[in-house]
């Protein structure tokens, strides 16, 4: 009896905070997305009107929204697989018994994860500077002419993807490493006795055993990459030619630069819808493959 009351009392402060500062705002965001909340409504609520799905309809006809969506999908479709591949590669290297100083390397690979996005984005902007950047200097050794990495619409997004992979691969690497360590050694033993090469062992033992880990890492990474914002904010400000405007960048500009909070909420909901759609698709695919 007493423990039951105590349970509620102990859980209440955190639940109240989550309710008031997260769940209710989420519901309110949906309501807000159905209004024309703008800078006039911010000054005086009497200027607020209900507009139904008008914000959504306008967005779906807005070329900039589609541009932002396309850029975000580009970032996700190239960035997520690349990031996961590098994480898996790094985990395999760390797991190999042939490596020396493995704890040191693990820490080194993980260090970028804990750094502040804004600060390291500033470093990368300098590294990829057209005239003084180390990257162009390095490339000049092999005869490549200076590339305007962040100023060329073709190169800006790839540069941001490289940055994101560098920054994030250590996170999934740790999860993969734990997954690799939990694969029983006798499976490899049995495979070796059957004469399987290293490549075969990887394809027929390691990958299937990592199935659930891969799904989890895929979901987490997708969710993270859809939320692209700070990188373009610092490195390119959405440019050049809007080639790095992401969905969240658009939401930020609409909401907190132009104070169109109704439109911004609609953008946020469309992103949420897209993210849940893609995540459910991935889980459906995994279940069908039996990798649940």
């Amino acid at each position: 009896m007493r423990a039951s009351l105590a349970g509620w009392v102990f859980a209440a402060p955190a639940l109240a905070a989550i309710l008031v500062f997260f769940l209710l705002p989420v519901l309110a965001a949906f309501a807000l997305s159905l209004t024309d909340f703008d800078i006039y409504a911010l000054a005086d609520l009497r200027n607020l009107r209900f507009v139904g799905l008008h914000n959504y309809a306008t967005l779906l006809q807005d070329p900039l929204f589609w541009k932002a969506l396309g850029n975000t999908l580009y970032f996700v479709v190239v960035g997520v697989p690349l990031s996961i591949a590098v994480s898996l590669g790094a985990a395999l290297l760390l797991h190999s018994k042939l490596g020396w100083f493995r704890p040191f390397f693990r820490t080194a690979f993980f260090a970028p994860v804990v750094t502040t996005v804004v600060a390291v984005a500033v470093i990368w902007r300098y590294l990829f500077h057209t005239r003084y950047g180390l990257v162009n200097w390095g490339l000049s050794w092999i005869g490549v002419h200076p590339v305007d990495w962040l100023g060329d619409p073709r190169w800006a997004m790839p540069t941001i993807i490289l940055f994101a992979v560098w920054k994030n691969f250590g996170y999934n690497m740790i999860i993969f490493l734990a997954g690799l360590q939990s694969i029983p050694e006798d499976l490899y033993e049995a495979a070796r006795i059957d004469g399987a090469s290293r490549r075969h062992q990887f394809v027929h033992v390691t990958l299937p055993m990592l199935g659930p880990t891969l799904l989890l890492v895929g979901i987490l990474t997708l969710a993270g990459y859809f939320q692209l914002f700070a990188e373009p904010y610092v490195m390119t400000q959405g440019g050049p030619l809007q080639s790095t405007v992401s969905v969240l960048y658009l939401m930020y500009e609409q909401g907190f630069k132009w104070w169109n909070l109704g439109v911004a909420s609609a953008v946020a909901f469309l992103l949420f819808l897209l993210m849940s759609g893609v995540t459910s698709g991935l889980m459906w695919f995994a279940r069908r493959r039996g990798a649940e």
Partner: protein
Amino acid sequence: MNDRLARALVNGLLLGLAVLSLAPLLWMLSVSFMQPGEASHFPPPLLPSAPTLANYRELFLRAGMGRFLFNSAAIASLTTLLSLLLNTLAGYAFAKLRFAGRERLFRGLLAALIIPAQVAMMPLFLLLKQLHLVNTYAGAVVPGMAGVFGIFLVRQYARSLPDELLEAARIDGAGELRIFFQIVLPTLKPILVTLAIFSFLGAWNDFMWPLIVLSDEHLHTLPVALASLSREHVQDNELMMAGAVVTVVPVLVLFLALQRYYLQGLLVGSVKG
């Protein structure tokens, strides 16, 4: 493949990847000690010719970096303290105290994890504006003070506490609060350290929310200040690198000191399935 070749390959790749991971950070450190203008040459110098603290002096004396550092430290510390208190209480309740609707509530919380935090930002801003919390530390702290991830982390750990221990204390007549503070809290120490690092790093590194809620320059956190400095001082590479050092070094040091706890938490958080 013979063994010597394989060993060389593995170690070569490890070394290469470590260089790629650390080089930008090391270069940041090196450039931050260069004379103003020194890094804007081609080819870029790797080490400062005459190391100087001029950039740091400029940052702290003229650009108000001390203020930003203080803001970041204050907001991250406050968030950490509140997050420790609220999430630990709730995590323990969800693990060990039976109450009506507990399991259903917990499943609901986990389901809420799929909602991206940005969806709540517009109404949250309006709510905080009504409460006069925009441009205050409290406004920056509020979204991070309790979270599903934190509750989950503590719950997973607290579940391994033996029920007999709690029962024995109850039979001895100890109240629930006393049980929590005297028996439960000490055994939760490792996970509290983990939760503390996650909260601190999360608050310190956060960018979008402080950018929105702290428009007053005196309240800027380091990432927000750095982003706005980098827009003003596009050419001052040495200055920006020093700013990046001030922002990144505290979290790197914290991580290096408490690495074990951090990586443990990362794994607990990712086995939820």
